[in-house]
């Protein structure tokens, strides 16, 4: 059967393409890699500057500001527990990786989501790309990422960004689309420009949805840290990876629990931040 149709050498083509990209755009990729690495390292340095207890308190206060007292308390205890287990520095490295990837996912994702909500053509083209980004096994991104950016934190970061970005884009688009039609009509009837309509009405009303997307992006990015560690991204993921390869169940569970704690803290804080503070019942 195989002889009936000649097998097209897709894999070869892609390899050639990647080689060509590396040859031609090598310096560009190097520049991006340097920038991203510096960003992550700066995050780590800033968070490592104060003593661990002080940073735990700062996070607890942030949690209090964004959400509730209960979550603030949970944040404080969770961070102190991770410190007690001795995973403070790897935890910071992981957090820096997650925060950087999510920040970039938001910076790129929200405008794309807005664009898709405004232009049918953009949506038609980008939607399948988003499907691809989310369903392609994450390991596959790692291979070309190594070619482009070498071993280290950057290929892991890039893979995380690609994997984490779709929910922010989708939910931004959805949130803007779900703004009731009569409100859009009202903005139009008063003579708003497209930007005024977006900035004064649509985006503020889409905020809960956008924040839900950001929350999802954070969770997906966290789920990538172990995979990222396989190409040399430092952090808690590395500890898990080591525990797996050396069959150390205890260490594996400890680090796993630390990751879960960070995940819960980030999830609760961002969930609450998304809820709008406007009073009373919805009209």
């Amino acid at each position, binding site marked *: 059967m195989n002889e009936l149709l000649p097998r097209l050498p897709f894999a070869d083509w892609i390899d050639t393409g990647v080689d060509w990209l590396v040859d031609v755009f090598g310096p560009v990729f190097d520049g991006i890699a340097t920038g991203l690495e510096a960003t992550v390292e700066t995050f780590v340095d800033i968070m490592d500057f104060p003593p661990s207890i002080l940073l735990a308190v700062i996070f607890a206060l942030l949690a209090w500001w964004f959400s509730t007292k209960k979550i603030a308390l949970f944040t404080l205890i969770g961070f102190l527990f991770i410190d007690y287990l001795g995973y403070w520095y790897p935890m910071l490295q992981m957090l820096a990786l997650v925060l950087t990837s999510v920040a970039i996912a938001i910076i790129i994702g929200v405008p794309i989501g807005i664009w898709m909500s405004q232009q049918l053509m953009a949506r038609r083209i980008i939607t399948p790309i988003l499907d691809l980004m989310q369903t392609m096994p994450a390991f596959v991104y790692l291979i070309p990422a190594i070619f482009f950016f070498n071993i280290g934190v950057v290929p892991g970061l890039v893979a995380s960004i690609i994997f984490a970005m779709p929910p922010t884009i989708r939910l931004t688009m959805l949130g803007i689309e779900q703004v*009731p039609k*009569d*409100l859009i*009509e*009202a*903005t*139009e*009837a*008063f*003579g*708003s*420009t497209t930007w*005024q309509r977006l900035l*004064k*009405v649509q985006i*503020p*009303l889409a905020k809960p949805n956008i924040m839900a997307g950001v929350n999802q992006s954070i969770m997906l990015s966290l789920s990538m840290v172990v995979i990222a560690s396989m190409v040399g991204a430092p952090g808690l993921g590395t500890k898990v990876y080591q525990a797996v390869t050396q069959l150390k169940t205890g260490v594996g569970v400890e680090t796993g629990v630390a990751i879960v704690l960070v995940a819960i803290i980030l999830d609760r804080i961002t969930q609450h931040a998304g809820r*709008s503070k*406007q*009073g*009373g*019942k*919805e*009209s």
Partner: protein
Amino acid sequence: MEEAMLKKKIEVKNASKIFGKSSKRAAQLLKEGKTKKEILKETGATVGVNNAAFDVLDGEIFVIMGLSGSGKSTLVRLLNRLIDPTAGRILLDGEDIVKMNKEQLRNVRRKKIGMVFQNFALFPHKTILENTEYGLEIQGVAKEERKNKAIESLHLVGLSGYESQYPGQLSGGMQQRVGLARALANDPDILLMDEAFSALDPLIRKDMQDELLQLHEDMGKTIIFITHDLDEALRIGDRIALMKDGEIVQIGTPEEILMNPSNDYVERFVEDVDLSKVLTANHIMKHADTVQIDRGPRVALRLMESLRISSIYVVDKGGRLMGALTAQDAVAAAEKNLKIEDVLITDVITTTGESVLTDLFDIVSTATIPVAVVDEKNRLKGIIIRGAMIGALAGDNQFINENGEISDSNQVVAEVTEHE
């Protein structure tokens, strides 16, 4: 003043709107005179508005009324181009808004036309003040100035003190006041009100109608009001356009529509109307026979005898109502050589021409002599006779004066005799 009233504010010339892909072919079919249903069947396109033509005069309340699906909401959206017409011209102060570019259109929407929506369409994330400021905010009006204008506008609709609340905290009636304040804050010439009171319960709705009429009287804006409620249309409209299947089937004053429905559809529509809330004293009053106060009682008596009536109204030289004189009193006065003045009944019941019949039932039923209709200078305009009132309520056109002009006075004599 009269001339200013006649100025055309909006002229809609053969405007059509067809929804759907094959709108060009549908427009062609429409020209050939096919109906909405036939066009839907042949092309799949829906006719929203079919060849609408009307003028709205400066300062009037123009009501567009029809059942749901009649195209009235589409028609009103053509006026500020929230929906672009498929064909036709729409002139606003003589300028065709269909030809305007985005920038010009934005300016018209910002300065000339305000809109109030059925479900209020307030921004839930903004306070009442911020909502009211919105139109000014997007024009780049300075913060202090727009705040003052918004506060003033909220004051006009009776919502002072709610500035920092959110729409969700207010009742429906109050939310629609905000909607109205938001539209008024821009000080537009024209207000488009799309079923503005339909979502409110009946009592609140009536209050809002009264307030709108008051605001209209104070500010003199041109109002285009969409409604599916005939009572509402008759209550607030200076003129009414009735729509069916995207077509305007009749345009006229409330009386014209009630009294001369142009076809079966309009007739069916108006047959259930509570005439007592629409007809006024002007519609049913009859010519009043009078005697001047400086004449003698014998003259009055002769007049009553020849007209075969038992009482007569007495006026001065300027036609102002002085009182009433009964035949009995006139006889007594004649015997004792008194003047009419000496036996005049001065506490007669009067009403104004604008009073609707519901408000007249009580006084007409208890009055011993026909109720007098007077104008603001107390000049006697006519009298109300029970028989005519009942006849008018039964929808009998011979008892109803067109445009408040009394036509036939012979009838009155017979009526009066019967009545007394």
